[in-house]
């Protein structure tokens, strides 16, 4: 009974966490790399489910697991907005995002594209919330500078 409950718990967790984790990893791994990394992280979560289940912030931890269990491509490949049904989104957003330093890109992406809290991002990037704030601020400033003709500051 307990075993079945544990499986059910994990399946529910994986159902919710998988897409969210893949979304979080996509800015550093690209679409296919993020799927692989999220799959690896979920496999790790299953193998260590009692520990993962008791964590306060399993997403941040599994983000790190996903990153450490997969090798990064030199630069992730991301589809243009119009390829994913967003023709009204500024096409230069993607190259500008990819041009950011990795830490800034991860912080901006997790906070503003994935809606993670600063504390979650700090745990995922193994840094402090104030450093996350610095990365986000610098990253957004750089994005706005790149795209200043199109976007409000």
């Amino acid at each position, binding site marked *: 009974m307990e075993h079945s409950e544990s*499986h059910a718990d*994990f*399946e529910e967790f*994986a*159902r919710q966490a*998988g*897409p969210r*984790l*893949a*979304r979080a990893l*996509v800015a550093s791994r690209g*679409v*296919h*790399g993020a*799927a692989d990394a999220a*799959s690896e992280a979920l*496999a*790790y979560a*299953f*193998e*260590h489910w009692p*520990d993962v289940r008791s964590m306060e912030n399993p997403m*941040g*931890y599994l983000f*790190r*697991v996903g990153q*450490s269990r997969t*090798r*990064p*491509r*030199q630069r992730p490949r*991301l*589809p243009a907005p119009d390829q*994913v*049904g*967003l023709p*009204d*989104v*500024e096409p230069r*957003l993607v190259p500008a995002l990819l041009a950011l*330093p*990795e*830490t800034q890109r991860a912080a901006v*992406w997790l906070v*503003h*594209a*994935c*809606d993670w809290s600063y504390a979650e991002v700090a*745990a995922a*990037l*193994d*840094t*402090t919330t*104030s450093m996350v704030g610095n*990365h986000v601020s610098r990253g*957004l400033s750089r994005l*706005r500078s790149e*795209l200043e003709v199109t*976007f*409000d500051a």
Partner: protein
Amino acid sequence: MPDLLDELRRYGDALEREVAPLVRVPDTYGPEGSQTHQRSRRQRVLVLVAALAFLATGVVVALAVERGGDPQPDGDTKLPTVDTTPAPPPEVFPDATAGGTWTKLPGGPLAARQGHSLVVGDGRVLLWGGVVPETSNAYGDGAELSLATRQWRVIPEAPLAPRADHVAVWTGTEMVVWGGGNRFGGDEQVDGAAYSPTARTWRRIAAAPLPEGPEYAGVWTGSELMVFGASLAGTHGAAYDPRSDAWRVMRPADLSTTLDSRVSLLWTGTRLVAFDPVPQLAGAVSGVQVFSYDPATDTWSDTRITDLKEQALGGGTLDGFVYLVGYGGSMVQLDPESLEWEAKGEVIPGCEDVPTVRAAGTDVLISMSCQVAVLYEPSSGRKHNLSPPEGVNIWPPTEWADGMLVTWQQLSPSGEPTEATSVWTYAPARR
């Protein structure tokens, strides 16, 4: 005009729709999820390509550095390296007699020591200071363990002289370290500093209006660090408010008895309770003197002497009551308002050691170095013997935080450094 943040979120939504169907969920009914966990040939090829790309990047970067170029002209080279290596999973041990769970965590980078502080706050265990065992050589270093990631990092150098037996409290945002000495009655300090693990910075705190000489003890009241000590000239106390970085002097206590040693302090939620054995000749003790301080009126109570004739004792508070346990294992329950006390009998007989007493949820946890520990239920008077894993001693400093007891294991019962250090937590069973 389009909004950058809105477009980022919409792009994130779109990519989640793309990537989510590609995520493989482990087959929870297969062996270790292996049916879906096998790497595909495509993955292996990707790993190989990525490894080659990684090597090629390294060569390019090395050449750029050799030419004097900046491999990362964005200025992020000064940022701390992100260690994405996950910590090993914790080892979990059920307590066979009292229930609950013992969890072993990594022990961290610090050398074994005595007289250090252990503070728990903001999901971290912070260790600082102490001395090399059986010496007066003090440490001025520290390290912190993230309970979420189980990873350690070294605390930046403090603007303080090395010290041991100092006061250390968690204020909610900072660890304040104050006082201390070299553990052998020398180099007593009356200065302090506050460390923010979020900002990873120290700040020196305002100078305390207190004389050098006494061995001060301290407690955190929820808004102030209250420190108190005694000398032949009398008692000395002051309270530090970290919000204003200012001290206020506490009225001296008018005691009818002598305070012979470092006074032990407890905070009940509304009052400071101080206790100390009343010494007699030839090491005898006539009782334990107890007195209290009301910060609202800046007044001290009269002294009451219990008939707990113990040379040393430990204390803890739970639900507004004070529990004092003596060297021989006898316990009294004190009402801090009236200082009326009630004997509770022997909770740990036949051990004879300075006990550690901590509130642990709805119970009082009492432990001694003979590796005996009990959970005492005040509501029923029942005791539950604990069975810590072999080698785990619940010695000071320990902390109760976030529903668990936290202790750092690094010395054997005989005081010898253990081969490996470890942090242990104990979460009692719910009754």
